[in-house]
């Protein structure tokens, strides 16, 4: 009955429970849950880092933590939130819902999908393992050269950083190829591109951004590796290198990266608002094109992160204008969301609270962004708490709020249970209040002279009051997360009776049981509009019965496999071996071992039948 890795029978029955079934799963829904659970833990870790930061900054001249440990905390907070929380939380939704929304049974490459998850897990564990030796990355999440050079960062901290990011980059690129192909090639009959759900559209654009942006940072991180371990001077001035090259390469990746962080959120909001307004998304085509335009233009604004580097007036002006330009399609989206709720019959469920909260907070974040777009004004704002305010409004008030909306919206589909609405609203208000208390005063502090990335500040500069307020706010956020976790725990116990379509959704995922069977659809549907489930419901006169259960007989699903995990482990060993170039023992032995395991994984993967 049990599968083994050597079982080549095409229809081998697979175990559905137990550790092995999770280690070998290639089911996009399970992989989605793995991403979500793992990312949530990293999110809590990143939040803990933030709480310690806030405690340290609560009063002037404190020494709760050492300066170096503080620098590790803020570096890891940023790195974790971006790469280990927001991106993989988005990946949870990509995984679970892209196939469902396009009417597919799985993604294009299920084993590659599993591989991406395992690489992400290993990368996240690796980079956090640095805390065990008090050597977590400490040069900021964007690791500016030449601070990261061997001379000025002689410990292993920066090695953990660049290696961790390289490992995570592999996961992202592999997943991007997978979802790109899935969306291009596996849509249900009738689902033209302009009938795809907006979440799928925004995710599609995100995959393209991932494919095009990550290679740039991959190269930059290789250059950093060569500088640190192999004697080159790509970014080291004494050898002819230019530290500004790092900034260019990093931000050519880094700016599209922020769109990678926000576009899936945009997609989620565009799913939630119509359902809870009971009318379609306003301006579907405008939303598609504005999203595409933002992504395209997002490659042309990167040096707005570099306005204080003295690039000269022509470069400054160019990037200022492109940055202002990108505000236009962003505004278009906000107006279309308002247009969606306008004239609707708004249902104030928790998901809707977070979606509306998103709009309110993202407007603020967007406006502070426009203020940054003016280089001379930015000469005061950059590298101060004003920027910290800006990006937290768009990343927390934006991405996190949207991901939370997605969680409350899609929870019943994933787990068959509805999260409690009362607790959900409490979560929202605590988080909304806490979030604004934490980040709104940062605008004031930044404009009034508080730089960023400081482990303390002296008395007498006026920073005391707002820092205290911010710390209180941060703890409120923490409490709101406890409410959410309690809600999840409590709901787990209940029966899975949410039903297939508790919200009267518009898209295909609501047509199948909650949680969905392994094969998703008993029969692949044909689609006639961008709101197929609303069409079905309308045709049935408004009432839809629960979908009939199906045994899955005759539907061939891919076999589980341990090869993705093996390959991920081999690749990680290969990459981590670079940490040890200065070790007493021959580090290349570890490289070769990793390579051997990886090649074994790849070859056995290539030659096992997919099923």
């Amino acid at each position, binding site marked *: 009955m049990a599968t083994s890795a050597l079982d080549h029978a095409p229809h081998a029955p697979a175990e559905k429970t137990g550790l092995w079934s999770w280690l070998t799963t290639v089911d996009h829904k399970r992989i989605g849950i793995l991403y979500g659970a793992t990312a949530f833990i990293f999110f809590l870790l990143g939040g803990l880092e933030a709480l310690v930061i806030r405690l340290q900054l609560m009063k002037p001249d404190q020494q709760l933590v050492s300066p170096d440990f503080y620098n590790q905390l803020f570096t890891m907070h940023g790195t974790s939130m971006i790469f280990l929380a927001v991106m993989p939380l988005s990946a949870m939704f990509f995984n679970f819902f892209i196939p469902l929304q396009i009417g597919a049974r799985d993604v294009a490459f299920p084993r590659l999908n599993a591989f991406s998850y395992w690489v992400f897990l290993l990368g996240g564990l690796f980079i956090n393992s640095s805390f065990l030796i008090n050597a977590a990355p400490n040069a900021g999440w964007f690791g500016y050269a030449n601070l990261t050079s061997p001379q000025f960062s002689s410990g292993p901290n920066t090695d953990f950083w660049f290696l961790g990011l390289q490992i995570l980059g592999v996961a992202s690129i592999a997943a991007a190829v997978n979802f790109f192909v899935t969306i291009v090639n596996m849509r249900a009959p009738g689902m033209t591109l302009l009938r795809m759900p907006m979440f799928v559209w925004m995710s599609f654009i995100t995959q393209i951004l991932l494919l095009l942006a990550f290679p740039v940072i991959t190269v930059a991180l290789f250059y950093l590796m*060569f500088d640190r371990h192999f004697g*080159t001077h790509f970014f080291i001035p004494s*050898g002819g290198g230019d530290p500004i090259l790092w900034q260019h*390469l990093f931000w050519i990746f880094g700016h599209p990266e922020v769109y990678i962080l926000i576009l899936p959120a945009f997609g989620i909001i565009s799913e939630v608002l119509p359902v809870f307004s009971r009318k379609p998304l306003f301006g579907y085509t405008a939303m598609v094109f504005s999203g595409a335009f933002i992504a395209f233009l997002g490659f042309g604004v990167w040096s707005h992160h570099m306005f204080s580097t003295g690039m000269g007036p022509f470069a400054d002006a160019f990037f200022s204008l492109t940055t202002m330009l990108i505000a236009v399609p962003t505004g278009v989206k906000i107006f279309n969301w308002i247009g969606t709720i306008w004239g609707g019959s708004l249902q104030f469920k928790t998901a809707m609270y977070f979606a509306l909260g998103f709009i309110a907070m993202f407007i603020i974040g967007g406006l502070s962004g426009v203020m940054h777009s003016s280089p001379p004004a930015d000469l005061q704002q950059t590298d101060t708490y004003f920027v910290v305010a800006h990006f937290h409004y768009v990343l927390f008030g934006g991405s996190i709020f949207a991901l939370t909306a997605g969680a409350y919206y899609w929870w019943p589909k994933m787990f068959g249970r509805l999260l409690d609405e009362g607790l959900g609203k409490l979560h929202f208000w605590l988080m909304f209040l806490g979030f604004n208390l934490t980040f709104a005063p940062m605008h004031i502090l930044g404009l009034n002279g508080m730089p960023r990335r400081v482990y303390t500040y002296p008395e007498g500069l006026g920073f005391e009051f707002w820092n205290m307020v911010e710390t209180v706010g941060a703890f409120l956020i923490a409490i709101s997360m406890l409410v959410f976790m309690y809600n999840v725990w409590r709901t787990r116990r209940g029966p899975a009776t949410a039903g297939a379509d508790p919200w009267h959704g518009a898209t295909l995922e609501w047509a199948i049981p909650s949680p969905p069977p392994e094969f998703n659809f008993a029969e692949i549907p044909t689609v006639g509009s961008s709101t197929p489930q609303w069409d079905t419901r309308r045709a049935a006169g408004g009432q839809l019965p629960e979908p009939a259960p199906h045994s899955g007989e005759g539907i061939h699903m891919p076999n589980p496999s341990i090869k993705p995990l093996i390959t991920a482990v081999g690749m990680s060993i290969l990459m981590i071996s670079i940490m040890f170039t200065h070790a007493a023992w021959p580090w290349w032995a570890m490289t070769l071992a990793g390579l051997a395991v990886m090649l074994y994984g790849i070859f056995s993967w290539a030659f096992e039948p997919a099923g």
Partner: protein
Amino acid sequence: MSTAAHAAHPETTTGIDNRKVAIWAFIGSECLFFATLISTYLVYKGKSISGPMPADIFEIPLVTFGTAVLLFSSFFVVLALNGAQRGDRKKLITWLSLTVLCGLFFVGMQVYEFQHFYHKGLGLGTNLFGSSFYVLTGFHGTHVTLGVIWLSTLLVQAIKGNIPPRKALNLEIAALYWHFVDVVWIVIFPVVYLMR
């Protein structure tokens, strides 16, 4: 004769096999990878403080020959693919073997070249030229090597008779990758070796 694999796979939205779409997406990503490497080479061109300069050590005739070999290998793999699609096992194996040999020759030439430069005093960290040259061509050479391994694996499969016409796509995908690696070299060669 259609090159699409039918049978085991359901229809795709575009009619193109998933793996083919995937390799194109991957190639798109790789374009940015090499664009970054090439741009950095250009940014640092002529900026080395000291040490061997390109003019001092480049052996253009050898590299030109290697370039030609690589270009021919792309042609050979097309012939091999044609053989696979027609079920002409002999054609497939002959031309695929030649492709692999050409690839090996190219890698060998690069290894020789690197070793030769090293003896002439150009190490990885010697100057900006060394750094940007070795990293750029080294990554390209790694891609060629991985391509050789991939094609060799397919060659073994071909010899065992495991590449009938309905599985020609397996070779087609490797061939697309191989062409890409070739095209990248077509950019690197003039930019690095010929431009002054």
